[in-house]
């Protein structure tokens, strides 16, 4: 019998007394241990790895395999809320209103297409929309008070005075959208060993159709593509100590790679905690991440972020005054629905690896380590024993990220700091599931702004701490590069 038998989850329904209805509660107990024999990460999510098909567009939409029927109920309702279209207030369906007034999308799913990766618009508005990416905005500190607030972590950024921290490119009827995303590209050539020429495109981002007057002259803009939704609950369950153990902020081991944790203020407790989610690790956990997305992306309030007008600023008075969808004392997204969405996000499963045993993939895995990719794309962690999701506990997982910030050089810099992350730093993104990007999303656009059109381009954009690894990659023979890519695509 394989070791997966030990990954069995005791069906909650057998043991728990009463039926659990959409409560986020469950009677599950766990009989699962980190599988230390899976030395190649064939089941990257441990026992929670998806058991669904990996050869079609739903490959990222399956639930953790360790869920009971009872928790599947919550997952399914969470999925339905995730794709639910919110409407503006007032509406006949009181539980579904509260959208906007400013928003980027009407539903979670409209950005997180097929629970996968977003993409840059194929052409500037109106030929295409920019729905699966957004622009973050801020300005440098303008006063000592602002400098202090940033330094002590009370705030993560100084909002652009009129538009806030995010450009919402849509608005409900009767309100103006903030503007449109306009991206064009310049290209340059890079020559690899053996003569292959790769063209790298760099985005030039501007905002057109500004709805509320000019931007602050020193506005910093950062383009953010919606990241894939898989494995988030497992990443959340990695103990802080395991992440911090890999940090080397002053590069004391002299390998050229620092690795710094972001530190952010927890909204509820006010404590400074480890940042973990988002392109710059700005959010500490999935509750905070979900609340931020509801607020910033859809203009919906929740218990954690109760402002009903979402991203409206004091300078957008009509926006603040618009009808909202919160019943008295509540939020536009009631706690019961909010919890179900978080549960859904926690339990979108990581797919099993494909073709892991071909000679090229095995060779590529060795090269991945030799070139130095694994210095930041940390192959494996073991999730904690004590987590809010016991069915995700104590699993050996293979995300290929250290969840730390790294200086990625000028080429990738957005020059827009967030909390402790500088304008050159990005959090190492996980690589699990990356080989299914085309299957799920129909494209292979990578990096925070989707500039890379394939994995080779993405690697070649690596600079800063990753420059040496990038250079080693560029010097590999064509066959070796193909092997390395085969390995990455098997993840």
């Amino acid at each position, binding site marked *: *019998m*394989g070791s*997966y*038998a030990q990954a*069995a*989850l*005791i*069906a909650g*329904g*057998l*043991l728990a007394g009463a*039926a659990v*209805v*959409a409560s986020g509660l469950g009677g599950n107990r766990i009989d699962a241990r980190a*599988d230390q*024999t899976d*030395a*190649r990460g*064939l*089941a990257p999510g441990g026992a929670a790895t998806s*058991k*669904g*098909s990996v050869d079609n*567009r*739903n490959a990222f939409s*399956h*639930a*953790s*395999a360790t*869920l009971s*029927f009872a*928790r599947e*109920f919550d*997952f*399914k*309702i969470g999925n*339905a809320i995730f*794709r639910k*279209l919110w*409407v503006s207030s007032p509406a*006949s*369906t*009181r*539980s*579904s209103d509260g959208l906007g007034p400013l928003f980027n*999308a*009407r539903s979670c799913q*409209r950005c997180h*297409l*097929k629970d*996968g990766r977003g993409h840059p618009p*194929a052409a500037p508005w109106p*030929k295409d*929309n920019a729905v*699966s990416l957004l622009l973050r905005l801020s300005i440098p500190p303008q006063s000592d008070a602002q400098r202090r607030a940033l330094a002590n972590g009370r705030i993560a950024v100084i909002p652009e005075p009129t538009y806030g921290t995010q450009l919402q490119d*849509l608005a409900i*009827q009767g309100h103006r959208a903030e503007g449109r995303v306009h991206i064009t590209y310049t290209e340059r050539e890079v020559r690899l060993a053996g003569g292959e020429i790769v063209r790298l495109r760099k985005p030039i981002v501007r905002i057109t159709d500004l709805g509320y007057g000019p931007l602050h002259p020193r506005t910093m803009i950062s383009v953010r593509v919606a990241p894939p939704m898989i494995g988030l609950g497992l990443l959340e369950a990695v103990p802080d100590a395991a992440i911090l153990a890999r940090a080397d902020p002053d590069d004391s081991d002299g390998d050229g790679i620092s690795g710094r944790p972001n530190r952010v203020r927890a909204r509820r407790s006010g404590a400074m905690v480890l940042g973990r989610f988002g392109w710059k690790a700005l959010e500490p956990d999935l509750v905070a991440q979900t609340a931020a997305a509801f607020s910033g992306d859809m203009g919906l309030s929740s218990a954690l972020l109760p402002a009903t007008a979402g991203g409206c600023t004091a300078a957008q008075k009509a926006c603040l005054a618009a009808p909202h969808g919160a019943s008295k004392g509540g939020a536009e997204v009631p706690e019961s629905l909010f919890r179900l969405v978080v549960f859904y996000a926690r*339990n979108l*499963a990581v797919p*099993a690896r494909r073709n892991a045993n071909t000679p090229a993939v095995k060779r590529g895995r060795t090269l991945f380590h030799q070139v130095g990719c694994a210095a930041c794309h940390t192959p494996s962690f073991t999730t904690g024993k004590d987590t809010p999701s016991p069915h995700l506990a104590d699993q050996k997982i293979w995300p290929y990220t250290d969840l730390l910030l790294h200086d990625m050089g000028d080429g990738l810099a957005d020059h827009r700091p967030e909390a402790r992350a500088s304008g050159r730093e990005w959090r190492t993104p996980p690589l699990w599931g990356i080989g299914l990007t085309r299957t799920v999303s129909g494209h292979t656009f990578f990096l925070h702004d989707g500039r890379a059109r394939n994995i080779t381009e993405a690697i070649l954009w690596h600079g800063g701490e990753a420059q040496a690894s990038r250079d080693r990659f560029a010097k590999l023979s064509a066959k070796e590069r193909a092997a390395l890519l085969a390995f990455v695509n098997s993840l």
Partner: protein
Amino acid sequence: MQRHVIFAAGLLAAALTVAVVNGQSRAQTKATAPDAKAVIATYANIAQAAYGDALTTAQTLQRAVQALIDKPTPQTLDAARKAWLAARVPYQQTEVYRFGNKIVDDWEGRVNAWPLDEGLIDYVKGEYGAVSDENSLYAANVIANKTLTFGGRSIDASRITKTLLSKTLHEADGVEANVATGYHAIEFLLWGQDLNGTGPGAGNRPATDFNVAACTGGNCARRVQYLKVATALLIDDLRWMAAQWGQQGAARKALMEGPADKGLIAIFTGMGSLSYGELAGERMKLGLLLHDPEEEHDCFADNTHNSHYYDVIGIQNVYLGRYRRVDGTLIKGASLSDLVKAASGPTDARLRKALAHAVTQFQAIVKRAESGEAYDQMIAEGNTAGNKIVQNAIDALLMQTKDIERAIAALKLRPVQFEDSDSLSDPAKVLQ
């Protein structure tokens, strides 16, 4: 440590695969137990018959659609709607096959995807909103527009073809609500938008929307073409699936040729996942939480009560090993119920009782709907009696799922590993 069955709920599909039986062959110890392969054969026979019925009723729908197109009158439109409703009866009884069988789950979105942004297909009114949305195709109206622009491309939609609907538009831009094919696309064409909220009434499209000579709603020739193509696609898809359950079909062979317990797990997975997560959760509880008339599965036709009811009948069918065909014939054979009964009579009795109880609760919903209060009205805010009757049905599904879990435990079935990769079943071997 005591071990219990695990249910990899998560998923759909495929989920559980290889299973191991503890102890001796049941056939030796339980004289009355049927052979597990015979039980699986019954399951496959029911699938073949039910998908076959779904196909023939869809063909009847196709003839009714042609009659509507030939002579668009209120009578022919009504006949087409009745044919659509009749076609849903066998199809919904097949939904229980979706969650235990990867081949069905991978295919299902082509025929039964929901909910849909109907503005992709045809004209819409009311609060729908014609302005550009973050879904470029939200109000694209293929019937009115021969060129569509999305994803930075112009799409030639001058000819409405199977390829256009199933390959180009279905889930276009990665948006799941871009549903261009299947029962619900056809339903929208036959009924039109339901603009009544949680008030009474279904969609009310006039027959003249299909009258090329005296057209209402514009673009009648293209609407006719869309309806013809979508119906033909449905038939293609159902024919294909019925064949997968034939004697040499891939779906049947996948079950019959694998370990018997894998097949039994597939049957239980379908029952449990449809009961709990899909029907009780996604399709019913959410709508009740939100009191949202959009959360109605067959919303244009106000047929949700039947849609849910026949799902529940389908669950009962596969447990009892019987299916009443559209022509009245009874398909019957060795059943899962017999197998559980041989292992534990009380467990079988409980589950049969729970399934029957659920059927009763869904009959109550059907009865209420037929008395004039549609499902979307039942879930409306403030409709205490309606809400209660829906909640009772949900509770019955939750209860029956517990008894399904007890039945799995009684048979000592235990899923142990992934299906399609021996590298996963034996990682150590791979590392050599």
